[in-house]
């Protein structure tokens, strides 16, 4: 597990939509801040409800909380670049359970773009199929 430095715990923030990582950073209304270190692993978790969804306010919240790592779904490039410039590691485009995302990060297995959804149960109706593209059609 990577820590911010040897003394201070790693501060991770996950954007939430229920139990899941929220699909959009700018529409997020709740976040979970997690503290973890080498000895204790994950030792503190706190959920905050935001006053309103706003990417700017959320950036400010992340800076105020001195977050080291952000785990989120989709995020606009301007905010991604801003937070990266502020030396916050951003793992975006994550789909799945927020707790599982944190555990995956602490184990060093989580990557940006990961889908953590379990195999889906049988849909209400069988998924229809349109067949496959031909080799000629493959590409874009």
């Amino acid at each position, binding site marked *: 597990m990577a820590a911010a430095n040897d003394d201070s715990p790693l501060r991770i923030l996950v954007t939430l939509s229920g139990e899941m990582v929220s699909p959009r950073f700018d529409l997020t209304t709740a976040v979970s801040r997690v503290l973890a270190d080498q000895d204790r692993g994950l030792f503190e978790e706190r959920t905050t409800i935001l006053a309103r969804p706003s990417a700017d306010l959320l950036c400010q919240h992340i800076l105020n909380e001195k977050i080291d790592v952000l785990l989120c779904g989709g995020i606009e490039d301007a905010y991604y670049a801003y937070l990266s410039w502020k030396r916050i590691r951003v793992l*975006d485009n994550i789909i799945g359970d927020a707790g599982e995302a944190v555990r995956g990060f602490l184990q060093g297995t989580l990557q940006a773009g990961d889908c953590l959804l379990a195999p889906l149960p049988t849909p209400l109706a069988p998924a229809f199929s*349109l067949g496959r593209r031909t080799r000629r059609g*493959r590409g*874009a």
Partner: protein
Amino acid sequence: MSDTIPIPDLLDAVATPLLFCDRSCRVVFLNRRAESLIGLHTEQAAGLPCALVLRHRICAEGCPALSSGEGPRRAVETDMLTWTRQRIPVRVTINPVFGPEGDTLGFCETLEDLRSLQGREATGPQAQGFGPLLGRSPAMERVFEALPLVAQSDAPVLITGESGTGKDMLAEVIHQASPRANGPFVKVHCAALPPALLDIALFGSALGSAGAGGEERPGKIRLANQGTLFIGEIGDMPLPLQAKLVALLDEGLIRLPGEIRGTMADVRLIAASYRDMETMVREGHFREDLFFRLGALRLALPPLRERQGDLRLLMDHFLRFFSQRLEKEIQGFSQAALGLLLRYPYPGNVRELRHILEYAVSLCQGEEILPDHLPSTLTEPVDAPGPPQDQRPASGEEGRDTKSWEEAERTMILQALRNARGNRGRAALALGWGRTTLWRKMKTLGLQSF
């Protein structure tokens, strides 16, 4: 041999982004246009809830497909967040897909990218120019007169002009005014990529190929399918790639390594160069056959010094633009500042003028731009204007004009930071910028450590 067309191939030929999902709103298929818009392949998206793939704003308020029965849906305007980190305004129409028994199998979502429509509102001939291109000078009038005809044709276009004359913007205006406006406008700049990467960026790579780390990459040409591909700085394109481009223009096909039949590419090509292309052809640095194919339609953007009357028009435009953006109430220029601005030769053309006025508006705290608000490059003696040799700036695309501007801007930022004792919020306030603007500029200028 079968003469039936597979449905996915047929849907790929549709110029509108389409997404199919099952009854529980899990993605079944994306056509090529949808893949290009969303930034995900069908293989990556299949089985996922469509709300997590499309990430529409309206999805946060409840699934529009599941919420209103099985009748046809009305179009809804919203925005989406793509997997390439872009927020795009879109119009979404959701219709049920019925099986042979009349039962609902799923939904078809039609996505309309509204960026082109928003752009189109400002596209077309206007009193002071054409769309976002401003100018009333005879040199620009000639360009504007040719624009509608050039836009309606599907032939390749070559845009030439010095650095900073607006070649990229002109290419986008042509696309927006063309029948391909609803298609993608994809840009690639040859000077920004080494040859091997440029090849992959343009033509893509097959699964297992060495250059792209074994990944399958679609390439910009495929991504621009049914739209326009803009190749900037085409004079910097290596000769082997020029040969591949000739083949594309002749046959309309792109071939990945090992592929015999190739894939059809319905793309209109617009290329631009600041170089003297005829000289490059004579010296053997650019293929003559490619030059002739590109040169079928040719537009030359004049340098600012040859656009009589446009300087004042552009000055007023940028003054209004930046005053509004920076929330200032600047009414105009003092006589002395006006004289300096009108006398300056603008070797960096419109781009340099824009930078100068952004700088001046940032510094100005009153109602009038004064000489003190202008960069020192305007107040110091300069060499007589003239086109640089080969129309090329001394050190690549960002040449003397940009360098001098960057130096001025760097000095201004450092001074503001010193005055604010390193407090970026106060420095941004003093400069009249938002914190994000100051951050972006510091990043561009490599000042992050200050």
